[in-house]
């Protein structure tokens, strides 16, 4: 995250447009990376001194500072091996406290450790941040990736100041909602224009009363996740120098994405995905289909099963780990409330968490370690009126 004072943006009628780095900037970014590369194994302080002078190619000074800020976070340091500075410090400073002269203190410690006094003096603070050595270049870090990382840090710095965020997303909504809730945000969901489209309004409970920076971290954490949506548009309301401004981020903006999310929540899901596709060539298996709005909450089924030719034949399927009959009934009733009776629940027979043996109504498939596609097919291929 870069400090606010390093941020540059244009104010276009109330909309803050950050000055993102682009293709043209990769020239000086490459020069910057080369400078770091040249100082690998040398002290960070020396690099700082070297970079006081301008780079060999023209570089906008504030963008350069931003890039350095981000680069310093990504590029590791290592302490030099050999003599342990901590033990040296204790030896030297206690020797000095006993009243000997400076050079004698070094000489005495050096003799005891079998080192030269100049080595002792030179390694006294070798583990401090400014004395640490630059580690080799992080894997895959190239000028374009650095540009994307700087842009991400800028977008996050803006979001850190924001009070409320409105997100229009297609796909990946489940992970976004989960992460927002985990970060202590409140999430109001509204159905969007199409089935796949959702509008999420995110804000912290305290945001009602004051600008609370504590939520900024959670809001900023969403940005790299957005890149995994099929399409998104983010609008953040923020406050700059006491005035209301907004910031918009869309699909296609040059931002560094988060690591690829896990495709499946569990091994059972992953196995079912493979097994079912092999066993049922007539059916499409859609992972994380659109969410269903039930009252004020959202239900995200694990899979949708869609017949290839008869498009009206569509089922929802959820794989449940720990469960009780009450839980299954509540789930079924929830969907029945919005007129959906096409939910198949696959329940782990070994993880039945209730005492009584009541059987829930609805389409239930039980499994042990592996969901049998044949059992699912038996339900969905059953002739006759379905719903």
């Amino acid at each position, binding site marked *: 995250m870069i400090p606010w*004072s390093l941020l540059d943006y244009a104010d276009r009628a109330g909309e803050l447009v950050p000055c993102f780095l682009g293709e043209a900037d990769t020239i000086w970014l490459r020069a910057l990376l080369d400078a770091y590369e040249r100082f690998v194994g040398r002290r960070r302080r020396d690099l700082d001194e070297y970079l006081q002078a301008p780079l060999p190619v023209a570089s906008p*000074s*504030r963008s350069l500072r931003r890039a350095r800020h981000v680069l310093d976070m990504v590029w590791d340091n290592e302490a030099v091996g050999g003599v342990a500075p*901590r033990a040296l*410090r*204790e030896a*030297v*400073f*206690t*020797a*000095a*406290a006993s*009243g000997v002269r*400076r050079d004698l*203190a070094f000489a005495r410690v050096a003799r005891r450790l079998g080192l030269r006094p100049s080595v002792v003096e030179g390694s*006294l*603070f070798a583990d*401090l*941040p400014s004395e640490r050595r630059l580690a080799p270049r992080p894997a895959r870090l190239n000028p374009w990736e650095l540009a994307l990382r700087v842009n991400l840090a800028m977008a996050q710095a803006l979001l850190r100041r924001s009070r409320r965020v409105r997100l229009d997303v297609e796909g990946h909504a489940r992970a976004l909602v989960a992460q927002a809730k985990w970060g*202590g945000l*409140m999430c*109001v969901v509204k159905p969007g224009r199409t089935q796949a489209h959702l509008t999420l*309004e995110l*804000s*912290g*409970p*305290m945001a*009602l*009363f*004051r600008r*609370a*920076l*504590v939520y900024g971290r959670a809001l900023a954490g969403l940005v790299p996740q957005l890149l995994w949506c099929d399409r998104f548009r983010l609008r953040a309301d923020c406050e700059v120098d006491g005035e209301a401004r907004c910031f918009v981020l869309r699909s296609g903006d040059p931002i560094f994405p988060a690591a690829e999310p896990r495709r499946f929540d569990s091994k059972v899901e992953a196995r079912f995905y493979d097994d079912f596709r092999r066993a049922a060539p007539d059916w499409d298996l859609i992972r994380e289909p659109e969410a269903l709005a039930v009252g004020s909450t959202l239900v995200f089924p694990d899979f949708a099963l869609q017949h290839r030719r008869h498009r009206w034949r569509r089922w929802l399927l959820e794989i449940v780990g720990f469960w009780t009959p009450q839980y299954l009934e509540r789930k079924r009733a929830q969907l029945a409330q919005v007129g959906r009776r096409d939910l198949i629940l696959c329940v782990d027979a070994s993880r039945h968490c209730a005492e009584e043996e009541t059987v829930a109504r609805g389409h239930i498939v039980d499994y042990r370690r592996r969901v049998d596609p044949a059992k699912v097919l038996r339900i969905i291929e059953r002739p006759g009126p379905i719903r």
Partner: protein
Amino acid sequence: MELTFDRGTLVLEGDAPGVDLGDWPGVVWDPRVDAFRAPAWRYSEVLARLDQSGGALLDRVPAWKDWRVYGWRKVVLRPYQAAALYAWQAARRRGVVSLPTGSGKTWVALAAMASAAVPTLCVVPTRVLMHQWRSALERVYDGPVGLWGDGQRRLYPVTVTTFESAYRHMAQWGQRFGLVVVDEAHHFGQSTRDLMLEMSAATTRLGLTATPPAPGPQAERLDELVGPTVFQARLADLKGQYLADFDRFTLVLELSPKERAAYELEYGTFRAFFLPHRHQDPTGTWVDFLRVAARSDDGRRALAAWRASRRLLAFHQTKAAALRWLLTEHRERRVLIFTPDNDTAYRVAAEHLVMPITCDIGRAERARCLELFREGRLRALVSSRVLNEGVDVPEADVGIIVGGGGGAREYLQRLGRILRPAPGKHAVLCELITRATPESQRARRRELTLGPDLPTPAHHLAGGAR
């Protein structure tokens, strides 16, 4: 009417007969949940108002009532500490107690916690202080002491945590503690971390400080969030009996001719840019200036010159010579050296072979050094900020301020570090300042504001380039 706690706020659902909740201070309609909402710190007030209105109330907020606190051993207090405790209790257990550094604020807090006997969260500024509080608590509290921060994650009915952790987690903890003890409470009232106190529903609160804020917006906010200053003792009241006797003096030093020339050059470059700016924008803050300066080459040059001049003033040849003389003079005593920044601390450490205590030095090494200092195997420590607040070094009896003691608050904190009483102890605080620089101006301004707090004036001694 049902009252619940939701992540640092109170949610008010249902009807209260004859009351318009929207008229109450701090209560706002929240369309996200179709209910009224108020920040958690208003819990006592909301409760009192609901009580007046007389409607039935289902109060789910005070989860602390279901959490059992173990027994407390008796905490023996000095007379002024007992008076402070009494004043806090009389103020319905909400308020700030102001006692000089070294006079045992923590003991007042321990006694307050014992008397309240509700689940308590102690929030302290640093990790070092967190461990110090934990060991103090373990001496008088029978149950396990929770610790949150510095890699520890244990939440118990009596828990110590850092400002930072409390800020991040209060949304979850706000209803679990009935008492919040805030160490160094002067950090609150005007910072982003105030949110931490706003998200707590604790009905009783105790703030501790050596330097309460002067009347103004910060003091008013602190009054709302923790309580008014209910008790205040000054250094002059305790000196000699409960705090060590002390002398303080200032050594006014001259730069060497070469350094003076270098300084004038750098500072001149800065002023050439700064003065016209000041003229244009007389009310602007330093941050405003930084923003303007960062936008032009001249401005950046001025800032670089300003930094260079600061670095020069922080530690120069004459200061080094004076420091060497002072260290020799007091070689039998325990000395704390205070610097304006870490960089200077390392310069002092390397030149005079004095152990530095900074944020870069790990916890284990710091603890080891403080132990060696206590034993007398280290006779001096140098630090910029770490030793300012609360770290317990009772043996120290000489303080040397190499720079950075500009503000009254920092000066008092540093003085407090050498005032833990011991039989026959007479502490000395010496400040090194450079003649005809902003350093000497700041020291002069500070002496004016310090007046009533300090019994003895500083003796000014002129030193020269040696």
